[in-house]
């Protein structure tokens, strides 16, 4: 099967500092790729380059075999097919929730207002926010805002959805209400590239995990193998930084396992 997205050896530097140093990846239809790695490893920059928010210095990005990197004028047409949700609560504060949702479909895609409104209401009720359609964003909690942002991206019917640490700015108790929506989307077959620091969510949602470090993909694999037995030392150390007291118990329980034997 042809991949939806192909990223070929892209490079990106800011003020002479290399952030992406030759990244290649493919994403297939219906696949959920989770990108993890330490801060500053380039994972957010990778998503921003795919969506054309950053210009790449070298390499090439293809969406369904059409080159989308280096476009000047028509980037907005590409972005209509690639949805993106950010870390910061990025709703438009001067518009009601419903107007936030309708803006893209009616202005960018020129879809009819009535039709989109019906669909928007349906999706809002699915994420439990039907009663907030006429609310202003400032009256919503962070978790509610991010659910609206997800609905807003999905109403564009994107071929690919990019999620850039969408729960990083949330209070802990609101994380799961947002991530559950993402898991629902994954189950419906939405193609996604997700940058996250929520390891248990990553494990649950990923078809494939990319571990990035210092501007390159250092390790790649299925979630089972990656989270149980990462092949590289660096990935092991990274994963270990997420396990606190439970690491001790785990060490005892897994003592026969050669993969975890090196974790200490």
């Amino acid at each position: 099967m042809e991949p939806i997205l192909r990223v070929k050896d892209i490079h990106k530097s800011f003020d002479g500092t290399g952030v992406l140093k030759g990244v290649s990846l493919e994403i297939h239809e219906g696949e959920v790729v989770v990108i993890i790695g330490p801060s500053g490893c380039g994972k957010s920059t990778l998503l921003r380059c795919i969506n054309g928010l950053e210009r790449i210095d070298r390499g090439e990005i293809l969406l369904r075999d059409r080159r989308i990197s280096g476009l000047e004028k028509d980037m907005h047409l590409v972005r209509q097919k690639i949805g993106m949700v950010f870390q910061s609560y990025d709703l438009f504060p001067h518009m009601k929730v419903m107007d936030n949702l309708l803006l893209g479909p009616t202005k960018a895609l020129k879809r009819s207002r009535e039709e989109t409104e019906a669909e928007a209401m349906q999706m809002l009720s699915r994420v439990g926010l039907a009663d907030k359609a006429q609310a202003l964003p400032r009256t919503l909690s962070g978790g509610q805002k991010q659910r609206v942002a997800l609905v807003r991206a999905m109403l564009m019917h994107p071929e690919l959805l990019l999620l850039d640490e969408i729960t990083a700015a949330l209070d802990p108790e609101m994380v799961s209400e947002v991530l559950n929506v993402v898991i629902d989307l994954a189950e419906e077959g939405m193609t996604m590239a997700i940058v996250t620091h929520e390891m248990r969510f990553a494990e649950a949602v990923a078809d494939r995990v990319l571990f990035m470090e210092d501007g390159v993909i250092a390790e790649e694999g299925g979630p089972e193998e990656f989270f149980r037995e990462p092949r590289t030392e660096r990935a092991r150390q990274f994963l270990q930084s997420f396990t606190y007291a439970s690491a001790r118990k785990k060490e005892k329980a897994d003592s026969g396992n050669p993969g975890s034997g090196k974790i200490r």
Partner: protein
Amino acid sequence: MQDLGISVLFRGINFQRLLLGLWVTLRIALITIGISAVLGLLFGLAMMSRSRAARAVCRIWLEIIRFMPQLVLLYLVYFGFARLFGWNLDGETSAVLVFSFWGTAEMGDLFRGALTSIPRHQRESAAALGLTRAQINRYILLPQTVRRLVPQAINLSTRIIKTTALVKMINVTEVLKVGQQIIGQFYREPSAAFWVYATVFLLYFLICWPISLLAGRLEILWEGNHH
């Protein structure tokens, strides 16, 4: 004697004269505000332009109006330009010129501040929805800029109205000057000065207060829309 003092206001056409003076004040202020609003937007855009020369001109312009007292600028234009270039500007034109020079720069700076205070992710989220640059400006940046700008622009307008009192120094017969003329004519009523100036104060207050209230209302109405 105080009774006599206040009665000065209603003698002859004194009160109409004050109102006529007030109209001169308002005329100068309104024309200035109109010019400043339009040119201020251009000034703000120039401040953010890629051209270093345009940015430098704006910087210098802004520094001049910040450090130069308006009165000095008024004298410079009204008396100085007449001598130097042989321009015979009347007082009102000079006033509009000087105040617009000032208002344009201040309005431009407010506009630039309002626009640049919109978080970067607002533009990026809109771009991620596949909107064109023009659509982003129209639906996202412009409405948020206006909400930030309008209350501040209204405050600037009240400052402009107040500052017009200076134009009596270049022989424009606005409300304050009329007041002084009345006081001069009725010098036999010692308390006339109090009543006339109090009336002038009241007239300024009646103009500026509702405007200021409006700015406050708008700020409350739009409060929190910035976050």
